[in-house]
């Protein structure tokens, strides 16, 4: 079964978010990487870009398909993980640690309340 770490929040569209004050780290879930398999390319947003909750701001490509990644919260992109650009397979091997996508400064911390708890996300993916 997919790994769903208990210290993260989740979006229905299979992104995870680790919140620390008014900044957060975003990536895709173990379940999402297992569904995609063979990730061969990751395209990340520019640092400084303002994104809205639910906005497509990154692309992850497997051998078979390209998938949009939607930001779980609104805010400004403060850092991106060049390691996954250089080595996209990191998203397969370490989706919720070294395979993170970007860091974001939250513009509306209340949005966090709408995200899924680990238990709710487990229910969604049938785990």
């Amino acid at each position: 079964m997919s790994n769903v770490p208990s210290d993260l929040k989740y979006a229905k569209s299979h992104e995870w978010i680790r919140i620390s004050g008014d900044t957060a780290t975003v990536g895709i879930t173990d379940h999402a990487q297992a569904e995609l398999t063979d990730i061969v390319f990751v395209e990340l947003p520019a640092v400084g870009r303002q994104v809205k909750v639910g906005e497509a701001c990154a692309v992850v490509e497997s051998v078979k398909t390209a998938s949009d990644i939607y930001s779980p919260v609104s805010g400004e992109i403060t850092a991106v993980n060049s390691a996954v650009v250089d080595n996209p397979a990191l998203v397969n091997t370490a989706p919720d640690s070294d395979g993170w996508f970007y860091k974001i400064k939250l513009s509306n911390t209340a949005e966090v309340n709408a995200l899924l708890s680990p238990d709710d996300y487990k229910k969604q993916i049938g785990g």
Partner: protein
Amino acid sequence: MLKRTALYAAHQKLGAKLIDFGGWEMPVQYTSITDEHLAVRHAAGVFDISHMGEVTVSGSGAEAFLNSVLTNDIRKLVSGQGQYTLMCNRSGGVIDDLYAYRLSVNVYLLIINASRIEVDVAWLQSEAAKFKGGELNLSDASHHYAAIAVQGPRVKEFINTVIPGPSASVFQVASVTDLKKNQIAGFHFDNHNLLVARTGYTGEDGFEILAPDSDIQHLWDKLLEVGQPFGIKPAGLGARDTLRTEVCYPLYGHELDENTTPIEAGVGSFVAHEKGYFNGGSVLAQQKATGVKRKLIAFKMTEKSPPPRPQYAIWWDDFKIGQVVSGTQSPSLGIGIGMGYVPPEQAKPDTKIEIEIRGKNYAAVIVPKPIYKKS
């Protein structure tokens, strides 16, 4: 409601991801497209290809009829031999690409694409109704056959254990591995008859096996069991597509359609211009003599890029000159590869092109076919 093959339960048991392919619920992958692809390149892979269609054509007029509807020269076939060929409309557009086998005198088997069965059978029947060159029996046998492809350099090491010889058909061979490329023979398996052809769609040595639905599960299990020490893996349509793209085999609906001719698609060597009348022949002869407006090319990305995909634009010197029809990350080469149509002036190998991906152009180069060659 999607159609299911007799191996549906086997795919579910193996945890396959299933997709709609031409109206069939088929496995796209079991574990990973890359792993399955590399298993076929270096060891062995087994594919369910039961969705493919089969048409039998027999009678004293069969040879003349097939030579009038197919581009290759069917008279070149002796019993137990097959050929790649195309079926064209009168404008030279491709209705389907297929394999035609001569099983015995006046008995032929056509293996056609799953997505084209209805169209092909309707076309063949309408052409047969006009045919006056002798007795002709035409039958859509797609429902009678399930099929498996077993492909890869190590298949020849274990296939004779799974399907023991000698053959039990007009064409006599002592064992399956005595078949040469494009040969076909019948063999006993579980007291039933199988047809085994040394053909495939991966660029590797291997076999395609036709069997009744009732036998296919046992054959599938036995291939996986006996092939296990040789590294066999079940492989899905995802790997089938990346394997055929690396060796530039056309896929109907991508490289080929009713508005594309075999000459444009670079498969003119399967058009026998000298054989007499056949559908589309005059258009194809003219294209061969005077040239075409667009040509199928193969390309490799020359910088790090997202994988090229069908419908992406092809650019040359600030001009949009064509479109990608097949594209993927190549598991063998680790870079993006693809095929597309461009004007003949830009179709030469070593021509630098660009592929537009989400509004950005990435560098690529036209390469000779096939893109991947065995070292």
